């Protein structure tokens, strides 16, 4: 047996001098040199305008003249404006109905699509298609669906079946749900993909063990699938909520003659901000509305994360 001797540990090549910076410092330097450009970009293009909006909301800036500090005048005006409250209600209607309905439909489709082997990829692609379609194009197609016949498919079908015609986009009660349906349809593809990824991540043995222990389909869903899908669900709830709070494309494109109409019953906050800023050029007021939207987004997101937090 040959045993290593002390001579084996003596280096045969000259020892290199230690570098001036520690290994930690060098790696930090590299990391930050790569991060510098995006960080700079975010500061200039994202964060600065965001913080500037807070300041603008306290001024009467109208693009032309110097911004003048007017305190909380914009906020006073906004909270006294019935149109603002209408918009506020609309936005929350999109959020409160749209989010759970989207989530439920997406989950049901993902749950069953996950079990289907036949034409699985094709079906998945079909469901994903609406997500990659331009919002404006889809909004217009749905707008036509909702028309009276012969253009309107839905009313055409209702007529054929002998039912009465429904006023979709022209009615103050039906317009918002009609637009919401389009928005839900548009987002579904993405949510299905995310849910399916979440479902796939649950090991098969969990289900096999449950089957051996005698749990039925419903018990497996309730006790295993849904709890293990919680991180996915939390992500989607936050993601969908933010999407509904920022809804704009569908509304704008489906009500171009009277954006947010009829009588402002479909107008969301973002559309109001857009009009205030780029039709009325009332930048200070628009900034105040933006701050309100920002606050809502922040509160809703934090609230959801808190409610759905992992208690472990």
């Amino acid at each position, binding site marked *: 047996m040959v045993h290593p001797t002390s001579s084996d540990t003596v280096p045969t090549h000259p020892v290199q001098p230690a570098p001036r910076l520690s290994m930690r410092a060098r790696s930090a330097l590299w990391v930050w040199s790569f991060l510098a450009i995006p960080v700079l970009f975010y500061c200039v293009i994202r964060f600065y305008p965001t913080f500037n909006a807070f300041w603008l909301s306290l001024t009467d800036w109208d693009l032309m003249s110097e911004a003048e500090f007017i305190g909380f005048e914009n906020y006073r005006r906004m909270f006294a404006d019935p149109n603002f409250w209408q918009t506020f209600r609309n936005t929350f209607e999109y959020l409160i109905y749209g989010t759970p309905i989207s989530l439920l439909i997406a989950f049901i489709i993902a749950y069953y699509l996950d079990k289907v082997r036949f034409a699985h990829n094709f079906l998945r692609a079909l469901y994903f298609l609406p997500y990659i379609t331009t919002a404006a194009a889809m909004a217009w197609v749905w707008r036509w669906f909702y028309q009276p016949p012969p253009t309107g498919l839905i009313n055409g079908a209702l007529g054929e079946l002998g039912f009465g015609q429904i006023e979709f986009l022209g009615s103050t009660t039906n317009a918002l749900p009609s637009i919401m349906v389009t928005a839900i349809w548009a987002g579904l593809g993405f949510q299905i993909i995310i849910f399916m990824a979440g479902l796939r991540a649950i090991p098969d043995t969990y289900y*096999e063990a449950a089957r*051996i*222990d005698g749990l039925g389909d419903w018990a497996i869903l309730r006790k295993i699938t849904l709890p*293990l899908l919680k991180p996915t669900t939390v992500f989607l709830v936050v993601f969908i909520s933010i999407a509904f709070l920022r809804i704009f494309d569908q509304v704008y494109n489906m009500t171009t003659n009277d954006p947010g109409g009829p009588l402002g019953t479909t107008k969301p906050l973002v559309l109001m901000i857009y009009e205030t800023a780029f039709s009325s050029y009332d930048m200070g007021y628009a900034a105040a509305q933006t701050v309100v939207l920002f606050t809502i987004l922040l509160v809703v997101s934090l609230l959801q994360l808190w409610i759905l937090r992992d208690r472990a």
Partner: protein
Amino acid sequence: MATISLKKLTKIYGKAEVIHGIDLDIADGEFVVFVGPSGCGKSTTLRMIAGLEEVSGGEIRIGDRVVNELDPKSRNIAMVFQNYAIYPHMTVRENIAIGLYTQKLDKDEKAKRVENAAQLLGLTDFIDRRPAALSGGQRQRVAMGRAMVREPAAFLFDEPLSNLDAQLRAQMRIEIKALHQRLGSTIAYVTHDQVEAMTMADRIVVMKGGHILQQGRPMDIYSNPVDVFTARFIGTPSMNIIASEYASGAVSGNGGSPILLGVRPQDLHVGTTTDVGAGTGLSLSGPVTAVEPLGPETLVHFRVSGETVIGTAPATEIPPVGTEVTAHADPAQLHRFDAETEKALESL
């Protein structure tokens, strides 16, 4: 408790038959270990017994019922999986209690059974923890607890120790064996680790390519393997297989046709001290290529006609690499196999 019997059991995936009509009877309270390399069909067989895979042909009986078409839950069996399959969002107590989910027992009785199982497995201190806060061995015990509370007819284990480190594996082997002795339950246990098979089984079933090669008590299989595969698979290090023409010594052939000689490293003594069987048994010489001092003994690898052979030397004798050594084996310790079929021939 119940017997399990397999009759002409086959499994076909598409066009490929992976289990070729196996027959096996597991007695009530018996601990049977299925062992074999990856893809030999041992897990598939177990999963068919569990009801997780459909039976393509043949019959499975648990007790006196044919269970081919029964759902897993109706078979009254419990299974422990390699990755434990315990639920991360439930506490140890909830995980064990899920085994009783469908049982029609009152709450107190269920709670009592869960407590008892936890106590038996030494989980009482962790009962309100989540699996994330447990070690691998503790998680495996939770999985066993979930199986135990059901008081099933039989336990099925699918490579339950494969995810544990060596030390824990050795400990869990003893625990499972002790548990079996205490509960007296029928156990079908799948592993690719022959040490687990040897140490735990009442009976070992060696499988390869969807066939049962041999079944029997661990020592019977160790002493009388039916073919080269089983001979090399059971026992560590693997049995040396040598073409008889290279072996000098009094070893008779197989009516003229070539034979293979098998000798376990533990029976092949390196050095000069073993003169007992010299001349009558097997005698091999060659240069040492590696040595593995294990403590109680030393494994010596040496080359004989291009083949590496492993022999054993006493702990204190560590031959330097490169030196020529001679090893002897007693004639009674030699296994003879037909060179063509690799089946065992009766020993000398």
